């Protein structure tokens, strides 16, 4: 066990970079991209090193500035947290390569401000995945949310209204969470996760504890857009600038789900009767199943690629919440695996959207005509992501769905199992509808870049294309690496009792 500070550097560099961008970007727009990419590359490399260390030497706890717990800030660098840090920093780096390009176009004179918020958001996410303190979760969640509100407000059309809706809903969620934490503090006198985990089993489980638990969980559900608390998400996610969407869409909901898992299993334990209570389980998994079906159905009604994807995010949240609440090892494994996989799939899809938007503009289905000829690489990557969403092996989406289905069958939650299969079929319809338009329909003759039948290849700029190809390759790579990932990381991370 060799506690290093590398994970702190991974967290702190985006934060420092944020201020550097704000100050330096005021004088020259040219320095923005190098700073952003520089700090994020460093952050990713550091997170990866820490992850490898944790794999070989095991996890450790770290006290910031040597102020000891319960008063100081404690971080927990364990298998799961470290995996999440790699995910956050990897996705952030990949997304930012594309974001640098698209933001330079969309928000020409405000790009340094955009990237200030962007980097603070990333630092917040780093903190969220590492923190070992229930109150710091609240603080960091607000840092991440408030920067996200700002990024969304920079977007298109009714972005301000969408952002405002999100502010209302997000703040409500934060209030719930804070209230829950308050109850916990009254009951236990501490907010350190390890202390809480030690004290809670000794308490009598009464309504107060149940209230604390449910307030926190509901607060997180609002933040992650768990059906039916999802109504803010589609607008907010489809109106924000593409540069922000490639970061926020893959990470925000997924990190919140990670927090729910932390809360349920690092603060409370699987033995806590509220989690084990069959009726509660039944209801939550049932709602998740209904959510998956409804969100998939709503996705079917969309006529715009971006909006379609936002409803799919809501459906996928149902996958993971349901998986966790199956309360068995397979379901948990599936949920954690799906956090990683869904983050990568969403990343790939939104990178593709961003690439298409850079050439086509609007993303109505009609404007996707003939895209297979004009942007073959982008469309190939989109197809890979689509296959992963449908769950075709060897893409990673298949394997997390596999575990979730196994868990569902083991728990006898047939509604949930049915919902997963239904959603796979709907995904197939959704994506092949898009693929069909892009493959068969020819663009109008008066559209730019089209001649007499011979459509010219006009791919997205290299900086948007490369991260997209990397993300698509990652979907297959992570799929093939599922075995070791589950065996060496996720199984280790599952709480005792599974």
């Amino acid at each position, binding site marked *: 066990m060799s506690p290093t500070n590398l994970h702190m550097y991974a967290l702190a560099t985006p934060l420092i970079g944020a201020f550097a961008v704000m100050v330096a970007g005021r004088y020259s727009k040219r320095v923005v991209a190098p700073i952003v990419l520089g700090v994020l590359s460093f952050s990713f490399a550091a997170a990866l090193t820490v992850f490898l260390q944790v794999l070989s030497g095991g996890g450790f706890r770290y006290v910031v500035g040597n102020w000891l717990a319960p008063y100081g800030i404690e971080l927990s660098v364990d298998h799961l947290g470290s995996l999440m840090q790699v995910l956050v920093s990897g996705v952030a780096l990949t997304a930012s390569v594309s974001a640098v390009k698209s933001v330079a176009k969309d928000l020409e004179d405000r790009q340094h401000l955009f990237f200030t918020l962007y980097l603070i958001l990333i630092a917040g996410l780093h903190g969220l995945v590492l923190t070992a303190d229930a109150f710091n979760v609240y603080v960091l969640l607000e840092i991440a949310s408030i920067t996200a509100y700002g990024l969304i407000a920079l977007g298109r059309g009714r972005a301000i209204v969408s952002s405002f809706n999100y502010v209302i809903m997000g703040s409500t969620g934060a209030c719930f969470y804070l209230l829950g934490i308050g109850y916990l503090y009254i009951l236990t006198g501490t907010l350190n996760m390890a202390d809480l985990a030690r004290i809670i089993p000794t308490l009598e489980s009464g309504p107060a504890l149940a209230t604390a638990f449910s307030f926190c969980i509901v607060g997180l559900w609002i933040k992650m857009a768990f059906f039916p608390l999802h109504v803010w998400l589609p607008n907010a996610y489809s109106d924000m600038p593409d540069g922000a969407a490639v970061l926020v869409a893959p990470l925000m909901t997924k990190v919140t789900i990670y927090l729910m898992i932390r809360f349920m299993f690092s603060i409370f334990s699987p033995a806590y009767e509220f989690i084990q209570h069959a009726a509660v389980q039944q209801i939550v998994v049932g709602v998740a199943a209904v959510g998956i079906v409804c969100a998939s159905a709503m996705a079917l009604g969309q006529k715009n690629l971006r909006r379609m994807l936002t409803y799919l995010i809501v459906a996928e949240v149902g996958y993971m919440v349901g998986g966790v609440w199956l309360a068995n090892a397979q379901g948990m494994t599936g949920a954690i695996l799906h956090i990683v996989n869904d983050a990568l799939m969403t990343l790939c899809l939104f990178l593709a959207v961003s690439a298409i938007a850079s050439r086509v503009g609007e993303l109505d289905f009609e404007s996707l005509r003939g895209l297979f000829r004009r942007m073959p690489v982008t469309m190939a990557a989109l197809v890979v992501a689509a*296959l992963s969403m*449908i*769950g*075709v*092996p*060897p893409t990673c989406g298949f*394997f997390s769905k*596999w575990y979730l*289905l*196994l868990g569902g*069958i*083991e728990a006898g939650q047939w509604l949930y*199992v049915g919902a997963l*299969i239904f959603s*796979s*079929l709907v995904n*197939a319809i959704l994506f*092949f509808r898009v693929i*069909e338009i892009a*493959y*068969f329909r020819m663009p109008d003759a008066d559209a730019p870049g089209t001649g007499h039948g011979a459509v010219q290849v006009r791919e997205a700029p290299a900086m948007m294309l490369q991260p997209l190809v990397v993300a698509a390759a990652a979907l297959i790579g992570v*799929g*093939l*690496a*599922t*075995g070791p990932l*589950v*065996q060496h990381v996720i199984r280790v991370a599952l709480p005792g009792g599974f």
Partner: protein
Amino acid sequence: MNVEPSILPLAAVLISLLGAVPILLSDRRPNLREAWTVLISLGKFTIIAALLPAVLEGGGYRFTVAEVLPGVAIALRVDAMGMYFALVASFLWILTSIYSIGYMRALNEHDQTRYYASFAVAMSATVGVAFSANLLTLYLFYEMLSLSTYPLVTHKQDAEARSAGRKYLTYLLGTSVAFTLPAMILIYTLTGTLDFTAGGILAGKAGAPTVALLLVLLVFGFAKAAVMPLHGWLPAAMVAPTPVSSFLHGVAVVKVGVFSILRMVFFVFGTGLLADLNLGAILTALASVTIIVASLVALTQDNLKRRLAYSTIGQLSYMILGAGMLTAAGMTGGLLHLSMHAFGKITLFLCAGAIYIAAHKSNISEMDGLGRRMPVTYAAFFLASLSIIGMPPLGGFLSKWSMVIGAIDGGQLLLVAVILVSSLLNAAYFFPIVYRGFFARAAEGNGREEVREAPILCLIPLSITALFCLGLFLWPSLALQLIQLVVSP
């Protein structure tokens, strides 16, 4: 049984997948591109043939790509059953490649690069299915085949192709996600493994109702086998260029469906288990209905390719029927029919394509007197149709004969009747085509009927496959040897 680790199975699968890259890169140089296609198809066949001797000695090869789930890896294994199918498919791919060159050039088709590249990927998936060591790997390649053939089916990119493509994916992808995937997970939950094991893995792990449910799920989940009522995609897919119809929808795609079902019967359920639980009847009942109904529908089709498609639907179910008899002779017949039908049906389709190129006819009612102008094509057509009907001295006779014996062995005389009635129906829908071709008076004929055949690159492959229909009757020993290893290891 000596199963050695070897990279060769992987090479056999990957050669055409990687081969798609040089094909794509030589987009602007058609001769080079076609040279690649033929070269890769020859290479693939050579690698597979190199694996044959060890298989004949009762051994095999295996290769593990990655262990993705506990106890389940993405892994390849070469055994007699896979070898049998891979040999047939890779050999016919060579001929189809040559035929494709003649066909696509004669019609001056668009997007030929995409066509050849997709074909190569589809071929990888086909051999992948043949060499899969477990259900997960098979599922992976099965899906890969559905997806890689989509651009081939929809090659024309018009409204008809679009709706056919939609139907194609809805049937194939929909059933595999809705039926095969849950069945696979159920099997994994019950047994903890997905490996194909001689004698099956389900024995003692599940009761009769569960096994019956799994069997139904898997028969319909592998909709490529076109068991009714999930057959609608096949006639629709006839909108594809003829080499695609002939190879993919006469051999690769549809046989992958049947092959997968037979894999399940022999290596997941185990024939012993099915016999004990009396579940063979599920297979034979579904197959019998499909055989008779498809043959009747085929009678009503005027479009030649559609008639052949319905004929395929019926013939595919023969193979399932044979396996479902659960007697040694029946299973032998079913497996034998896989190659006999492959050679017969591909010949018929190749002839249909040749007729389309040379005379631009696709409806049977317009083909009067065409046989006198295209004697080679029609002779090949005649031979192949005799084989499908099951007349000696052609290959199809052997497989049908074996199935009849199998039915009698099992005391299932009703199935004998099914086979005989269906063979009569086969004759009823094939003979008029040949008769019209040779003897009917051409409506627009001007008396002088000079010979006008399809390009030589089309004629050679279809002549070879037709001769194979004859050859397989005289020398079926290799096929029988491999089948022997499957049926009674």
